[in-house]
């Protein structure tokens, strides 16, 4: 698969090709500017590739319409961002239950409470993001991305904005969850400790895969 922008004048990713197995965890590492974030965005269907194909299970997302990809993402893909991005005027609980509500699941609030509880936030349900610490915000954000029990979780430097204590905290929480719930994970990280927790490590250099082990 290739990814270019500005009408092919800038090649960001070239001849990228790999598969992710069911329940597999992968970390993507590489220098800043090498194209890691671009790759994650493409897998999540947030940008369009310029050549090649991307499959999610048996469906090819690379030739779907925006709305079709939305539908897949809504049910099967959870995304975690470096800067958390909680909806500022929603409480922690509302941020998490939003995903459940748009999928019209019953007991949305109950389920959201359960997951927040599991992430140690039972006393933070009704706080707004501005009233939470960075680590807490990221825990809410992860809770939001996993509450639908997605088969694939994408994370772009999930601990990049956190101190070391919180980094450890978050990584435990994320990897425990993935083990318990049998999800696949693709995670971009600078942090070697974090990268070592995954089964496979893909290194990207200047838009191509330089290592895949």
């Amino acid at each position: 698969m290739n990814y270019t922008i500005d009408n092919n004048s800038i090649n960001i990713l070239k001849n990228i090709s790999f598969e992710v197995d069911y329940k597999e965890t992968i970390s993507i590492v590489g220098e800043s500017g090498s194209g890691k974030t671009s790759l994650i965005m493409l897998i999540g269907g947030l940008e369009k590739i310029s050549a090649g194909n991307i499959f999610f299970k048996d469906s090819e997302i690379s030739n779907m319409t925006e709305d079709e990809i939305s539908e897949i993402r809504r049910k099967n893909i959870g995304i975690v961002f470096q800067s958390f991005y909680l909806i500022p005027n929603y409480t922690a609980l509302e941020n998490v239950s939003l995903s459940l509500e748009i999928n019209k699941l019953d007991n949305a609030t109950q389920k959201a409470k359960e997951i927040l509880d599991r992430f140690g936030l039972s006393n933070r349900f009704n706080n707004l993001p501005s009233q939470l610490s960075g680590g807490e915000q990221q825990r809410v954000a992860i809770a939001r991305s996993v509450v639908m029990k997605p088969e694939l979780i994408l994370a772009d430097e999930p601990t990049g904005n956190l101190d070391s204590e919180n980094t450890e905290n978050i990584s435990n929480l994320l990897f425990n969850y993935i083990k318990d719930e049998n999800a696949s994970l693709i995670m971009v990280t600078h942090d070697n400790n974090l990268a070592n927790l995954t089964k496979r490590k893909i290194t990207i250099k200047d838009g191509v895969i330089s290592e895949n082990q």
Partner: protein
Amino acid sequence: MKINDLSLYSKFAFRDLIRSYSKILSIIITLLISLFILSAILTIEDSLENELNENSKVLLGGDLEIDYNNREGDSNLIKQIENISTVSQVVEFSTMISTIEKKPNKTSFTRIKAIDQNYPLYGDVIFEPVGSLKKLNEIDNTILVNENIFKNLNLKINDIVKVQNKKFKVIGVVKVLPDIGGAFVFGDFALTGKKTLDKLELNTLGSFLNYEYKIKFDDYKNKDKKINEIKKIFKNNDKVKIQYPENSAGGIKRIIDNFSQFLSLVSISAMLIAGIGIANTLLSFINQKNSSIAVQKAIGINSGNIKTIYYLQLLFSLIFISLVAYGLSFFLVPVVDKYISDGLGLNIEASFSLTNLFIVFVVGLLVIIIFSIPTVNSIDQIKASSLFRNVFQSLQFKYSKLSISLSLLLLTILVSLFASRSSIPTYSLIYFASFFICLAVFFYVSRFIILLLRKNLLNLGISSKIAIKNITQSKSITPITVMSLGLGMTLLLTLAFVGSNFKREIAKSIPEIAPDYFFLGIQNNQKNLFKKIIIDSDKEAVMEIVPMVSAGLVKINGIDPNTYISDSNDSYWVIMNDRRVSWVNTIPKDNPILEGSWWDTSKPNKLQISLDSKVAKDFGVNIGDKFTLRIYGREIEGEVVNFRLVNYQDLSINFAMLLNPQFAENIPHEYLSTIKFKNIKSFNEVNFLDKFPSVSIIKISDYLSKVTDVLNKVFIAVSILSAVTVIIGLVVISSAIIVQGKIKIFQNLVFKILGFSKKEIIMSSIIEFIISFLSIIFFSTIFAVLASKFIIENIFQLKWLFEINIFFYVTIGVGVVTLALIIITNFRYLSPKVYPLVRNE
């Protein structure tokens, strides 16, 4: 979208709205104000019309009215009606009432109703003291006068007054008459008994008499059958006109209609100006929600559904706003009731109307959708991938062919909605066309200012440079300021110009052209004595005296015009009842002939008619058409030979129809006179009436002060309403400044770091304002001059002048308020704290 999706997104929308309505407060305020005005207009119009309809029988005074005009009814026929219904005879006539035992004695021109015991058939007469109404028909020569006469003539109960040659005892005061459908709106009135009337020698009153027979069916169920019987009785009697309740208040209804038409156009203007603000505020609202929307997209809500959430938020706000606006309009009804009940004697009550609420809602909905389409569509530009990069592009209005055509379609629906409700759709359409032309011009003016200033032609001080920078930057509020204030200003200036010109012309006509007095009902044999008496009291008095006879226009080319000319026709009054007609040898100097030729003296035995050109146009009459006039019960056919331009406002003697004197001189007639005294004090009304008891005197200044009073009230109401468009413009501007606030803070911070003083920054705001405002003044003045000149010269046919005072009042007034507002709104951005910006918050 499925129903349960909709309920889900409604839930989101509702939650979002509850939490962030303060960010769209300016949308709510401007919509609320403009929908409130629309609601108020609809509610008040409805209440008035309900009052008129519900009381149509009261206003007419019966289930039916047989109008015999100036002849007494045929007693045989009246007897026949009395067999199947209750009949009340009412005779109206205009005459003078004067005091005889006061110092000094005074007189008043009065419309007197002579009533029988059956009066009123419907409704109530309000009078004092108890029992005095009944006494009118028990004791001869008794009279009830209205409050105004009672006060002006300084009367007490049981005082003696003189009517014609007879002495009357004032036994009470009448406050309200039920049957005011006719002419009682502004004038003074009095009641007397039927028997008293028989003793007055009214033969000299001629054209001022009106005999009406009001009919009430005892058994209303058989109403239609009885109406037919009555029609049959009068089948061969075309001297009689049967009036129905539906038409009883045609004149008032027409005034209300026109007035509310005009006001609803003002309200829609306010709404369209509000629309500019809606688009702008909404864009900034969505910009603030940029990251939340990106998150929603990342979670898997598609763009269409997110847009639905925003449209639903607007919808919910609108439902709330419409209900509040409509509800608030009910509080205005008592105020209006107070305002008009003095003049009209109507009492209005607000009544709920689902249709009106619906109209208010639909109009609001159309405006919101039209102005929010390009804004809400900008949600498409937001990308979930921004969440990875932490950069959010600021959004722009997004126009697509589809959304533009949809907006245009909705705009067309909105315009047609207003045009179709109006009695003269062309006027509404012209109004809308001018509105959009102005809007376009102001838009391009703002573009032009920006373009011109970018050229950097001038070498200016630092404040001016900052100002120019502000005006020309891409997020400049100049277009919004210029459009919203420009439109409001244009409307306000136009109405101010129309109002001031109108008032000036009316005021001017009092001392200059207008005579001091009208004298009505001078008999043929009194003419010379009348002239002598006037000259004796003031040698330099300017006198105009013309013959006059009452004539009904009963047929145009052989057809009864009432069958095809409706009471909504501007010139309906010409055929409504008998008109006074006159004749002259030479063309009146202020009545130029527009078409046809003056009298053909070779045909002295043929009736020739000169017609008011406006009436000719309204009725579709051509030169050579045949008019049948009924004069003293005799029908005479004549030919229309020319059209004259008649200006009724000048208050000299004006007639819709003039006849050729060779023919008309043989008709028994009386005289009408206007007098302008050199020294008005030399004329004594009371002495005059001793000699001419049957002559009626109308003092023009009294009459005019009543008219100006009414005009003033109308002018105030209109000004208040049009000022609302400016107020909405100001809300739009201040919300635009707030929207721009972030940029302003940053900019002012940079200035601060660069070492500019607050004074220089404020100066730059003022210069920025002055540049925009001067161009607004320039263009809105041009538009207002054109529009008001058109209205004054073509619709009112008066002289138009540029009212420099009004111009300064309005522009300086609006300018000061706007500048104050801009400075106040900017003030909080003046002392930015360096700290949060450095931290990139």
